[in-house]
């Protein structure tokens, strides 16, 4: 079930039922935010690193959630846009020495713009062919990164991407340490989450859900499904590009392996595992599937085997991922006496 439905139901219920107990959702949410803000005080550098990676992956996952969870389009292209974003940022930083915020915005803008000509032919295809086409973007993206050597340095990758640097008038500072980067990524992730929230709660979000539920019916009530799909495809690409930019600036290197199926699979697991069509599920998913595996230093093979079994379980046993669980938790917090 979608969040919108649940939320609406709750507002209705609120007016209907006399409230005697306290709704603990807001205090709990504030506690979580507070915890996130003070995390560096009691977390070591390494757990912070794991959370940073998880928050970076949250951006493309949010994008994929808009596309898959809300609009119902299964796309494997997130890794391609993630890579384009990373390279855009890295190239700007290395060649022109532009500041971080410019590279970051440019990454989002460029990937969104590239998604337009790619989306127009791809979105005309149906299910399987669309999936293949998006997979093609990843493979061709990698080939371009590998072979356009004069621009990308090929397999050698681009190294020594400068750390984010901000200057406001006379004051300037460089985000170099893990803690500094943590706050930067946390702020960006929070803004991105807010943006997604606003999109899905807007009338357009409702239209996206209508398209997911039944495209022809959506057309028949006047929703220009084609335009919406294209716009959402571009937004989701832009999110992936922003994530890629952060990734490049955090790790200070990019290589053609940024374009790989593994990243698309990871993003799929985050979205489907956390619960497609819910925002809290995607946040939970990225912390669990990326943050925790990174923190526990699970060997890559074991991690992928676990991902594989998890995908099967998602398809056959719990198609909504952790969403029902999270939903129950929220209503547990909200429940009155």
């Amino acid at each position: 079930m979608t969040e919108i439905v649940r939320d609406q139901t709750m507002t209705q219920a609120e007016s209907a039922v006399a409230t005697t107990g306290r709704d603990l959702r807001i205090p709990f949410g504030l506690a979580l935010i507070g915890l996130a803000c003070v995390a560096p005080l009691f977390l070591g550098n390494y757990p912070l690193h794991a959370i940073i990676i998880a928050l970076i992956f949250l951006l493309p996952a949010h994008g994929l959630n808009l596309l898959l969870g809300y609009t119902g389009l299964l796309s494997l292209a997130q890794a391609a846009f993630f890579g384009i974003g990373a390279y855009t940022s890295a190239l700007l930083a290395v060649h022109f020495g532009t500041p971080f915020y410019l590279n970051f915005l440019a990454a989002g803008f460029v990937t969104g713009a590239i998604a337009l000509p790619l989306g127009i032919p791809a979105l005309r295809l149906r299910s399987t062919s669309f999936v293949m086409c998006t997979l093609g973007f990843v493979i061709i993206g990698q080939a371009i990164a590998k072979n356009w050597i004069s621009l990308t340095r090929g397999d050698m990758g681009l190294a020594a991407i400068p750390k984010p640097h901000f200057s406001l008038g006379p004051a300037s500072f460089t985000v170099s340490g893990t803690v500094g980067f943590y706050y930067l990524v946390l702020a960006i992730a929070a803004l991105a989450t807010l943006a997604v929230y606003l999109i899905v709660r807007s009338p357009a979000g409702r239209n996206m859900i209508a398209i997911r539920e039944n495209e022809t019916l959506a057309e028949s009530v006047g929703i220009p499904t084609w335009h919406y799909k294209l716009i959402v495809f571009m937004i989701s690409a832009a999110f992936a590009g922003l994530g890629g930019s952060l990734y490049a600036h955090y790790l200070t290197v990019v290589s053609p392996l940024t374009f790989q199926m593994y990243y698309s699979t990871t993003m799929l697991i985050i979205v489907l595992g956390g619960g497609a069509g819910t925002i809290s599920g995607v946040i939970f998913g990225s912390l669990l599937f990326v943050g925790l595996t990174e923190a526990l230093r699970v060997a890559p093979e074991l991690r992928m085997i676990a991902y594989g079994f998890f995908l099967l379980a998602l398809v056959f046993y719990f198609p909504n991922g952790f969403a029902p669980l999270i939903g129950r938790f929220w209503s547990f917090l909200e429940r009155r006496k």
Partner: protein
Amino acid sequence: MFYTVIEQVVNGIVSGSVYAIVAVGMTMIFGVLRAINFAHGEYYMLGTFGAWFAIDYFDLPYPVAIVIGVVATAMIAVVVGNFVMQRIVGAPAEAGVLATLGVALILQNTVILVFGGSYKFFSGGYIEPVSIFGFTLAEQRILIIIVGLIVFVGLELMVTYSRMGKAMRAVSQNIECCAVVGIDVSHIALWTFILGAGLAGLSGVLTAPVNVSVYGGMGELITFKTLPIIIMGGLGNVRGTFVAAMILGIAESLVATYVGLQFRDTVGFATLMLVLMWRPHGLFSAQARF
């Protein structure tokens, strides 16, 4: 110059045959299960590993290793077929994509975990070069072309004359009707899957001697090469798949020679995307199944 072109075409036919043997299995699986099998290349890898294991650990001769490789693949396919593939009959396309993606991750990484991720040396096969019409080819490559032809003719005969083949064709055309006239769809799906996976395994074993190196990640590359082939060939269309495989094999070979080796692996998907933009349903009709 002309000689080189012909030689490259022959090279292309060899790799085309390899792709064809893998891709027909994948396309038949699509026909019956309506699911793109993202794990298909992994069965190719499993076949190779089975044969490598037989040769490296037990010193068995290559022909025995072929049998072991194919049988091992088929046995794994029985397990996967029972637990995964039968369940995605009739499920939406996305479920098939995700489930087979999961299977691919499990198979590939289990093999890497067990045998290590590095390259292994495959020592079996018939690698002595022979000369035909002035071309030198390893005997193994001639074997690949011959097996490719046998598989093609065999499949054509099977779907036309055998009971199982006819049932497969029926299921691929209309799944609801089959259930009505008493064809056990899930049974057919399982056997089609085992046949397809077995063929992929066979292709792997046959290719190993000329590719020399065996490693856990090799299946993914094959999956990525076969996906465009089966879509261009018209999903579920065996003849179309054969033609598409040959076209891709030859195109790759020519690109490697005249454009650059580094661009070869992109040919498949680049062609696919051009084709999809021009004809969204592939080069060959998907209606003419089997």
